[in-house]
């Protein structure tokens, strides 16, 4: 069965991130001049404007910054079988924030600052999504 939900379309800046996910690694950009770590991917460092950058692996640990519980599916035909689901902003230990789903617990169990860790789910042979699940405090 084909994958029915929206899929990322990697571009020249984001492809290393998605390649990393497929290999089970959560990658962030690090500026080779000032060391600033950033997400989502950009060409220039917002801290020092350098175009020098490398990809480094995140610890994969973070905490829930905010979250929602989607109960009304939009579009209905795509998400009717998915609700309720949790979308969260997770602040990684490296300081950057990433949007994701929290899985592995009831939606009602999600709390602010809850420690979470990355877990990867293959969507298609090309795309693997970084999701998060409850974790012991890192």
């Amino acid at each position, binding site marked *: 069965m084909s994958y029915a939900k*929206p899929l*990322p*379309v990697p571009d020249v800046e984001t492809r290393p991130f998605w390649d990393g996910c497929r290999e089970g690694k959560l990658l962030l950009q690090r500026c080779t001049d000032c060391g600033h770590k950033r997400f*989502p991917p950009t060409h220039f460092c917002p801290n020092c404007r350098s175009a020098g950058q490398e990809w480094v692996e995140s610890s994969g640990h973070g905490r829930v910054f*905010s979250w*929602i519980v*989607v109960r009304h599916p*939009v579009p209905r035909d795509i998400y009717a079988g998915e609700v309720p689901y949790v979308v969260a902003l997770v602040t990684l230990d490296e300081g950057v924030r990433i*949007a994701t789903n929290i899985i592995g617990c009831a939606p009602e169990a999600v709390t602010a600052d809850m420690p979470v860790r990355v877990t990867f789910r293959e*969507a298609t042979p090309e795309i693997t999504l970084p999701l998060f699940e409850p974790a012991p405090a890192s």
Partner: protein
Amino acid sequence: MYSLRDKYAIAGIGCTAFSKNSGRTVRSLASEASLAAINDAGLKVADVDGFVSFNFNDSVPAISVATEIGVPDVRYANDFLSGGNAANMIVLTAAAVIEAGLAETVVCYRAMNGRSGFRLGGGRDLSAHGITQFTAPFGWITYPQAMAMWCRRHMIEYGTTAEQLGEIAVTFRGNAVDNPRAMQREPITLDDYMASRMIVDPFRMLDICLETDGACAVVVTKAERARDLRHKPVYIAGGAYGGGPNQGEDLFDALRWPDHSHNYAKYIADDLWRSAGMGPADIDMAQIYDCFTYSVLMQLEGLGFCKEGEGGSFIGGGRIARDGPLPLNTHGGLLSEGYIHGLNHVLEAVQQLRGDAGPRQVPGVETCLTTAGAMTCGSAMVLRS
């Protein structure tokens, strides 16, 4: 900073009916509202030489409206690719355009078939390009889903409650009862609010604005010219447009926003008040951008009507009711009048300042704040009679 205090005025306003299915082209809606605003000002079509609008690829270009209504000499026409954040910015832009001599009399409009045509955040695109590749694949697609994430932060930081959000929804609906333009005129209670369906926790159905087919337009011209026209001029005392650092790559994107318990408002407050030579205490009433109940709290806090985090208690006790000390959204707002992306707030402000708001008129109004935008970017104006 906006430096044209009281030099420009809104001389005319116009709108179409607000509905769920206009059965009309967006261009015809824009033309109808524009003609109504020109007529309301007591002007002829030939007196208008500028058009400014904004859209989300869901509307028609300004030149198409000028063409349909037969404007003989179009000196300036511009369309901003923007959301509700632009609804006050286009009025400030009209003043700037006239000040620069590019035009003399400018129509600002917003037109859309927001329910029967292009629905914002419909999520049909299964290919997530650009910044969307980091949001949509997780089922984070619609604006209610975006703003609910912000609202949760306010609840975490300050203990804001559903009942406080409900107070906003109930108050605005009460105002819409007396507004013949409003799409939702049945009064609601806090119990109705609490019982309304949870759409995206923490938002219920009644936290979320309407989707609307319709158009609004206003005519901006020099103050001294406006004084010779049909209505008492409504002066643009001050205004501001912008947001903080890390506004993101589009209106949805707030991945890098510092904390979603505050929005653009705190970043434009100083410019807004200095430009008008006023402060929150000088404001008789306000039309606050309410695409969601929660966005009202961030704007009241950010603009200094109360301290950060105290919005939830501030709006209680009848303070924002029509007979309270700070009446808000006297037309019912985006929540109950309709969603013309915030330009309908400017129409209501003008009616109130003219003393022309019928059964919902607040007595003795001399100043009205209007705001536009909910997230990382927005605009606001102080209008006065």
